[in-house]
């Protein structure tokens, strides 16, 4: 590997050693994947979505395979933010990778409280989850309207003493309006896309495959949609955009960077290939070497139209 290649990116003051982040919800708190590769290789880790209190999550089955995609309906099962701070941060700090805490709540007050708690915890950034499609309260009920996003983000902003990333849902008419509302309310960055709402039916039993009836679609099937949204949002806002949605390899990742993303998140691809993150980082580096690109930042928004 050449020493001249610079993979560093900057997300609202948070420097990442490379632009590849493990996406929230697919990576737990890193423990399981730490048996497969050195977590210090990652630019960052967005941990499993956290809530003020532990959550049991939705009834199984929680996953359905669809062509080139998966539907999930986990429903934010997590041990609660306090257990995360006590048990998981010390583990994650054993690696040299940015910790991004993904936070949800049922009410604006809960979002405020989560941001306050996480601002006092040893994490590097907060990703505000306004986009989980699998819970009844919070998330989409705020995240699917520009007004809702503005309300939550402007209310939590004053509690955040570290980069505040707002994770957006694609389940809206115009995602650029939502992204602009987040920016106007003080978000430091936006990440997109969360999953696309969908469902699957078992025709033998005539029942939905998922215990929650509907779920969220991820995987290569959503990539073209995600890429288009990242492209449009990158043009609509000035804050850095983190792109995700069906990224499985370095080619996918570079597409998102060219579309305007300053960093990318990878989730579903890791189910099939636990080395997906590492191979993507190595692949970006190889692409840069082959194309005489010194800094990965040269790729960001480098789409030629």
């Amino acid at each position: 590997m050449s020493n001249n290649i610079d993979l560093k990116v900057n997300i609202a003051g948070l420097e990442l050693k490379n632009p590849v982040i493990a996406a929230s919800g697919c990576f737990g708190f890193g423990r399981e994947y730490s048996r497969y590769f050195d977590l210090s290789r990652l630019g960052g880790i967005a941990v499993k979505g956290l809530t003020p209190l532990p959550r049991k999550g939705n009834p199984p089955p929680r996953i359905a395979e669809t062509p080139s995609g998966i539907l999930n309906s986990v429903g934010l099962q997590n041990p609660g933010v306090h257990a995360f701070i006590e048990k998981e941060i010390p583990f994650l700090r054993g690696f040299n990778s940015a910790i991004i805490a993904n936070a949800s709540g049922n009410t604006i007050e809960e979002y405020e409280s989560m941001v306050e708690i996480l601002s006092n915890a040893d994490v590097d950034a907060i990703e505000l989850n306004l986009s989980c499609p699998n819970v009844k309260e919070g998330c989409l009920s705020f995240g699917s309207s520009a007004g809702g996003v503005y309300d939550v983000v402007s209310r939590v902003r004053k509690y955040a003493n570290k980069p505040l990333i707002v994770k957006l849902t694609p389940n809206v008419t115009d995602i650029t309006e939502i992204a602009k509302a987040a920016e106007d309310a003080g978000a430091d960055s936006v990440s997109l896309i969360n999953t696309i709402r969908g469902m699957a039916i078992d025709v033998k039993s005539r029942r939905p495959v998922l215990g929650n009836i509907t779920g969220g679609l991820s995987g290569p099937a959503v990539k073209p949609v995600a890429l288009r949204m990242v492209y449009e949002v990158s043009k609509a806002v000035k804050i850095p955009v983190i792109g995700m949605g069906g990224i499985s390899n370095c080619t996918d990742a570079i597409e998102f960077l060219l579309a305007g993303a300053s960093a990318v998140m990878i989730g579903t691809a890791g189910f099939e290939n636990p080395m997906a993150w590492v191979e993507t980082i190595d692949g970006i580096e190889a692409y840069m070497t082959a194309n005489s690109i010194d800094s990965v930042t040269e790729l960001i928004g480098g789409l030629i139209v």
Partner: protein
Amino acid sequence: MNTKYKIVKAEHLNSDTFMLTVESEIISKRARSGQIVNIKCGDEGGVLLRRPISICSVDRDKGTFDIVIQIRGKGTKILSKYKAGDEIDIMGPLGQGFSLYPKHKKIIAVGGGIGIFPLLQLLKDHPAENKKVILGFRNKSCVILEEEFKQACNKLFISTDDGSYCDKGLVTDILRKELDKEPADMLFFCGPLAMMKVGVEIAKEYNIPCEVSMEQRMGCGIGACLVCVCKTKNTDDWEYTQVCKKGPVFSGDKIIFD
């Protein structure tokens, strides 16, 4: 981490079930009965998820292990096309296997349908003096690995749903009859949820500990994605627990069958 191994034998056992023998010193050395492997289906057809399959038997001397797979959908269909000499991508062994306690002198293993396979290595590995097996199949054409099971236990019972082979009826009815004749120290169940639910009730009734092997649609297979959960009891309430990491084998009294 290497996950690529060579298939040394691929054999169809009946119209929709096949066995792959895979060469892997590391998996065969580490594998305990009841554990699973998570198999990549290949790059064709947009099948993303690996398929979690229980390890059926292990040859630790040869460094190989067997998995038996029933063709159920796209992924298992792809896997059914693998031939000897092909390379296959397997993560494992994963999860928790069956408990092999020497104090359990008399055991009974009860399996139904494709749930019978992990019981074979359990029987081979278990130190008990008296091992009985009760296997249930839909009909005669579904009966497979009969000889292998016979060799691995003291007494084999088979039942079919339609009575086309051996006894007609439920494996749990045979279990009850056997327990009335002679007590057991430990019971193992693997198969349809309804069978395991009745099995756990019988175990409780006869005051015998038991273990069940749970099945659930999986995502990552290593415990990170919280997709493949089942309902389990905890100290004061209940929770959803990952089948891939904390199971697939659980103590029967931990599971809440809804």
